[in-house]
């Protein structure tokens, strides 16, 4: 442990030292260049560490995964699209894909809906910042901890035993249940149980962004509508909501990506069993439990392809923003 501590201290002090030294060193290196070339060379020296990390940890491995997905288990033989054929002919894979679709639709709807609702409601009360903190705080904790917290909510004991899970005890009061929440596979109820946990975590994220946009709306617009006799609901539908749409789109794209990448919650709460598997966890299982890197790579590429449209959408939006700057 002391060894680890020593390493950490050296890293925390040493690495910034090295990096600052590097940037200072670039000016020394630039002295070797003629004055004319300095502005051309300098940016690349400043970018070099970042480009190195991005290249090594994002660009190279993504290309590597695409190539690996066309190879067999051991990476020795080229198998063409066999790994993809396996994926799309595999019931477990398709079930994971179906669950990701449920995640995508419902996590996005729930988070954007609740975020919008809370942002609009808290705007009208004095305890706004307190209420926001309460909704927002789950975003700071790990999904593993959130999983632990919510297992205590969904906990099921057979009828006759005292129900110690919060939800089964609550519905027991009105004479319903108990319901084995995380074991109901009909209509993917248990996938919804997991989506609810993520909704609990991410609604605060949506609320914060939507609330910031809401505060940016010129109050005179609403005041004018009020003077003209519009009620609150009409003002919301006619003025506030249309102005919030771009913000809602930003939140929705973020949630779509979060839904597609969902892993921690599934790994922690169900391990992907009981028809709750998702692509990311399926890839992990194929990688570690089965050890077939070719197939696991194909699964990762399917996930990547699902995300590509969002990537281009974001780039388009970014360009539009830059054009305005």
């Amino acid at each position, binding site marked *: 442990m002391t060894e680890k501590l020593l390493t950490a201290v050296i890293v925390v002090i040493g*690495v910034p030292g090295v990096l600052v030294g590097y940037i200072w060193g670039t000016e020394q290196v630039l002295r070797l260049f003629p004055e004319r070339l300095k502005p051309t060379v300098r940016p690349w020296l400043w970018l070099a560490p970042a480009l190195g990390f991005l290249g090594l940890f994002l660009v190279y*491995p993504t290309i590597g*995964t695409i190539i*690996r997905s066309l190879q067999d288990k051991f990476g020795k033989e080229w198998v063409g699209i066999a790994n993809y054929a396996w994926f799309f002919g595999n019931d477990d894979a398709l079930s994971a894909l179906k669950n990701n679709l449920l995640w995508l639709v419902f996590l996005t709807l729930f988070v954007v809906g609740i975020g919008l609702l809370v942002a609009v409601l808290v705007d009208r009360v004095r305890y706004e910042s307190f209420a926001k903190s309460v909704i927002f705080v789950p975003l*700071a*904790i790990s999904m593993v901890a959130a999983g632990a917290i919510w297992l205590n909510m969904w906990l099921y004991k057979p009828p006759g035993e005292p129900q110690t899970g919060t939800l089964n005890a609550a519905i027991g009061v009105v004479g319903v249940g108990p319901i084995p929440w995380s074991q109901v596979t009909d209509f993917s109820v248990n996938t919804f149980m997991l989506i609810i946990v993520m909704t609990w975590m991410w609604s605060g994220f949506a609320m914060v962004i939507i609330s910031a946009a809401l505060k940016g709306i010129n109050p005179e617009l609403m005041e004018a509508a009020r003077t003209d006799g519009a009620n609150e609901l009409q003002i919301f539908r006619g003025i506030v909501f249309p102005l919030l749409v771009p913000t809602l789109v930003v939140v929705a794209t973020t949630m779509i990506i979060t839904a597609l990448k969902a892993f921690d919650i599934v790994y922690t709460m169900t391990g992907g069993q009981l028809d709750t598997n998702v692509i990311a966890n399926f890839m992990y299982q194929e990688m570690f439990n089965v050890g077939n890197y070719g197939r696991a790579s194909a699964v*990762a590429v399917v996930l990547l392809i699902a995300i590509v449209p969002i990537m281009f959408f*974001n780039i388009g939006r970014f360009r539009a923003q830059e054009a305005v700057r």
Partner: protein
Amino acid sequence: MTTAAATLDAPTSRSWFSRMRGKIGLHTALVILMIVWLVPTVGLLVNSFRPGSEVDGSGWWTALFPPYTFTFENYAHVLSQANLGTNFLNSLFISIPATVIPIFVAAFAAYAFSWMEFPGRNILFVVVVGLLVVPLQATLIPILTLFASWGLVGTFLAVWLAHTGYGLPFAIYLLRNFMGSLPREVFESAAIDGASPVTAFFRLAIPMSVPAIAALAIFQFLFVWNDLLVALIYINLIHPDSLPMTVNIANLITSHGGGTEFIGAAAFLSMALPLIVFFGLQRYFVRGIVGGSVKG
């Protein structure tokens, strides 16, 4: 300001009453929402202080009434028996360098993107925006293979490097948006006064970007502290002495099934630091979210 507003609104009792009645639906909805949001956490927090026998026999709400039987045993148990003390330190050792390194690397790049002219600048930044959403899953196998051949699997260095790479697109994006909006005149006059880019960077760009850097630091720290996947892959379960808390707690949950009293204590130990960071620096955290909301 608050006092002034309060005095201005100071209502006669009657108008206050009628306004309250008009707002009762609003307050009810908000209070219900807040309770729904708090109950799950409170439930596990209460259970984490109850003896195991009681946790299995009765719901957490029964502990709110006498006789009180709260205990620290679960915390003592997970710290000594479940290796969680070591995991806590590991989480710290992983998170701090994995926060510091990308901030420096990103700040250099963001400064170049903001205040230096070079061919391909826009295209390169568009690539960074594209990389924001690349799923980590698409990088795991080649990186793991690489780390294995370098003998880095199970080391902190592996996760420091990986987290730096994974965190960079967002870090560059956030810092560049902030640095790029600093006033141009400041940098121009510094250049006229003969300040080198290095001087302008350390004396002007960095001090003026402190709010963005603080937001980024909190973000990256929480991201790494809360991470499960990266540690699970690059440290791996076969190196239990180097694992961060998240991986061990996920293991406690998957292996114990229902032993919620230890899981609760473990979960709250792992939440302590994020919650302190959150409540202490919420303002910067919010700023980071609003300023960088293309991030997936």
